[in-house]
């Protein structure tokens, strides 16, 4: 976070809400109220389940939707009013989920679409951008003659050609298969870093979000549940939704006691957020599989009820005496049979807990 404190704010949203008109979507509020600041040259990943308003967020910034309330600023300029600052006047580029390549135009014409000015300068710029994305010599093809990865590159080239200040990526990799996705991601990232763009990537893929951003925002039902560095979001989720949505999570039920929260795995201290604890009686403590250590022990309280092998790791499902189940992640080299008893240890510096029913 500190990296940006002196930087300029590139995108600022203040209490923006956006509802779709009644036809089809029944006037549902798709977004908001949302407030957000994105700094110059920052890479922000926006993660959320489908229907959480991710795409709407981008469309509001691009000027393709006009928010009903709130204020949108680009580089300090108020652009809330779409009529006064239409999308074509914003200097915002967007790569769409299914690329939205113009099917009747060649690659070259697609990339040149956003360029104006002399033909010579235009040609030079198109060649430059095509080279940047590694498509030199493919200008004469039509979109349907390209593979998925190539179409993706054309979409990126078309977006980058007019030198946008802000680049918005709407699930751009979701149509590619897993290997290509990873490859394209690092390539696109490298290109955009080189151009020092300000980028928002929208995705529903956690791996992509973790790998992308300087920061990430978790969106749920049109609201930002948490905004921060990826590790912070993983280790210290602010809401139960974030805890459950990011990574694998089990919740251990416990009761408030004088030292903290008492569970069947012991008492968890809650020094840092003790203030919040006092309000409620029953709590849920976030347990991630990588926090749970297990030792074979015939007298142990937990039983291995299932295990799942996934290459380099094994995920053990453990049943506690109360019947509650939690998971433990172990290296594959460790082999514990199903049905055997184990002793549990939870490695926790600071428990993350949420009032039950929240």
């Amino acid at each position, binding site marked *: 976070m500190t990296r940006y404190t002196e930087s300029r704010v590139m995108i600022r949203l203040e209490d923006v809400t956006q509802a779709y008109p009644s036809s089809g979507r029944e006037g549902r509020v798709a977004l908001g109220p949302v407030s957000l600041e994105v700094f110059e040259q920052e890479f922000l990943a926006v993660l959320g389940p489908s229907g959480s308003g991710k795409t709407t967020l981008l469309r509001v910034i691009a*000027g393709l939707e006009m928010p009903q309330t709130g204020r949108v600023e680009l580089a300090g300029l108020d652009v809330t009013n779409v009529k006064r600052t239409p999308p074509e006047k914003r200097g915002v580029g*967007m790569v769409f989920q299914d690329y*939205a390549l113009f099917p009747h135009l060649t690659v070259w014409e697609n990339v040149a679409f956003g360029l104006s000015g002399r033909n010579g300068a235009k040609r030079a710029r198109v060649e430059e951008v095509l080279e940047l994305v590694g498509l030199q010599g493919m200008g004469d093809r039509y979109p349907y003659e390209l593979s998925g990865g190539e179409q993706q590159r054309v979409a990126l080239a078309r977006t980058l050609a007019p030198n946008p200040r802000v680049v918005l990526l709407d699930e751009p990799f979701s149509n590619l298969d897993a290997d290509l996705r990873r490859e394209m991601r690092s390539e696109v990232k490298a290109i955009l870093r080189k151009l020092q763009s300000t980028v928002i990537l929208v995705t529903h893929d956690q791996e992509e979000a973790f790998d992308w951003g300087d920061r990430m925002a978790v969106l749920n039902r049109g609201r930002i549940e948490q905004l921060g560095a990826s590790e912070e979001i993983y280790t210290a989720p602010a809401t139960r939704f974030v805890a459950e949505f990011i990574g694998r999570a089990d919740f251990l039920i416990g009761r408030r006691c004088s030292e903290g929260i008492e569970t069947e795995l012991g008492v968890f201290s809650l020094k840092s957020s003790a203030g919040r604890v006092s309000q409620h009686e029953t709590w849920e403590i976030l347990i991630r599989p990588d926090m749970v250590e297990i030792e074979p022990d015939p007298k142990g309280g937990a039983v291995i009820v299932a295990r799942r092998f996934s290459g380099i790791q094994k995920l053990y499902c453990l049943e506690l005496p109360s019947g509650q189940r939690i998971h433990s992640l172990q290296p594959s080299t460790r082999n514990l049979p199903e049905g055997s008893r184990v002793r549990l240890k939870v490695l926790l510096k600071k428990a993350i807990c949420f009032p039950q029913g929240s």
Partner: protein
Amino acid sequence: MAVSARARRLIKRRSSARPWGLWLPSALIALGMAVPLVYLLYQASSVAPDVWARLLQTRVPGLIVNTLLLTGLVTIGALGLGLLLAWLVERTDLPARKILRSLFIAPLIVPCYLVAICYAAFFGANGLLEKMLQSFGWEMSVPSIYGLGGAAFVLILATYPYVYVIVRASLERFDSTLLDAARACGASRVRAALRITLPLLVPALSAGGVLAALYSLSDFGVVTTLRQQTFVSVIYQQLTGRYDPSAAAALGALLVLLTLLLLWGQGRIWGRRRFASEKPSGRPAPLVRLGRWKIPALALIVVVLIAGLLLPLGVLSFWLVNSWLIPQTNALLWGTSGNALLNYLLNSFTVSVAAASLAVLLALPLAYASVRYRDRWSQTWAWVSQAGQSLPGVLIALGLLFVVLRFLPGLYATVLLVILAYVVRFFPQALQALGSGLAQVPACLEEGARLLGHRPLSAFARVTLPLLRPALMGSWILVFLSALRELPATLLLRPAGFDTLPVRIWTAASEGFYAQAAPAALGLIGLSIPLLFWLHRGSSAQGSVKSYD
């Protein structure tokens, strides 16, 4: 993925060992459908050179100019009107769009020859308009409805609904993220419309344009009524008036050539481009506010609806009332004599039912072969059998006439020949409707039935046929409706005294007994309305368009 696709192809190739029981009938049916056209061309090739020379020097140049002028005017007019109306209904804040959406195809309920007859009677010399003006004491000359202008006007009214339906469906399925992308690339609203929307409508426009062009190339009723000479009207005259079959064959061959040129031209404009943008994005495109343009837009719509629908219906109703009021015509019309309306109705009904049933029955094996076994031969048969498509009814009748006179003189001037002409002419409609219906029934259902122990025929009968019922129904109604309204082939081939509803309307109107035509005309329209409604009820979702004339 690649492996499985290859494996599937291999399996398909091995398992689709040609089923002769299907293949042989398909081939015979397809060849049968092509016989009249092929024989017509053969006849034309044996026309004496001096006849050709005479025709080419005298009639042909003027005919080509006349025909192309009419076709061009109608195509441009239908494209303009259809596009404008589709845009108004889909992309603007025009009031009452939902009602207008279906009202715009309403002119289809009146067959175009009927519209032409009404126009001739309304605007013509000593027509209703003149009488009306005289009764007010106004002496003024009414602009002539005859000739190129009038014929083009009526044909535009008859063809714009086809363009409208196709373009509207295309607009409805238009992927609006392409427009978003254009805006995000810095294009203004207008530039996005011109550079993205319009080019992507090209397939719809060209399909609609070709329909309109073929329609006016093959039209018989409008050009004859409004006295505009085209290939079709002249061929008809050669056959009926002066009986010169070799000249008719020669002109017919030229008309075939003209039609093929048109179809070839349509295929040329695509190039390598693709226009498949039809992926519903879920986000409706924003509506354009018409503002003060609302009034001219509504005025245009009112004019179109009056001209295409209300005027013909009004004229027909006027005649009907008249026929009741005048005792002689009343007796003539509703009496129990052989002229009774019921008789024509029965005639029309019988031939149309026979033609529709036969066409669907014959189309079924071909449709199945071409959809399920996508090998070269079944595609060829499907293509051959559609040779008659987009050819004027006059030419089908002509070809059939030549064949019958040469090989089966016993069939000449029988009801069976009329039915055969309908089947040959409307077979492509049945085939296409069945084919698209079959394509929607996944082959795996039938394969499943096979794996559960059913023989091919039983699997088809127990699984595919029940699922195909809507398509069977649709194609039957399509052919029935077309046959019910068919005019030129019936006029040329019917046995003496065998009058269908359209023939009755035509002969009564051409003798000037409009009052006698009215009940038959309204009966025809009344029969058409529920069928047309049935055919078009799903058309907004599927964007299908049906052609009948």
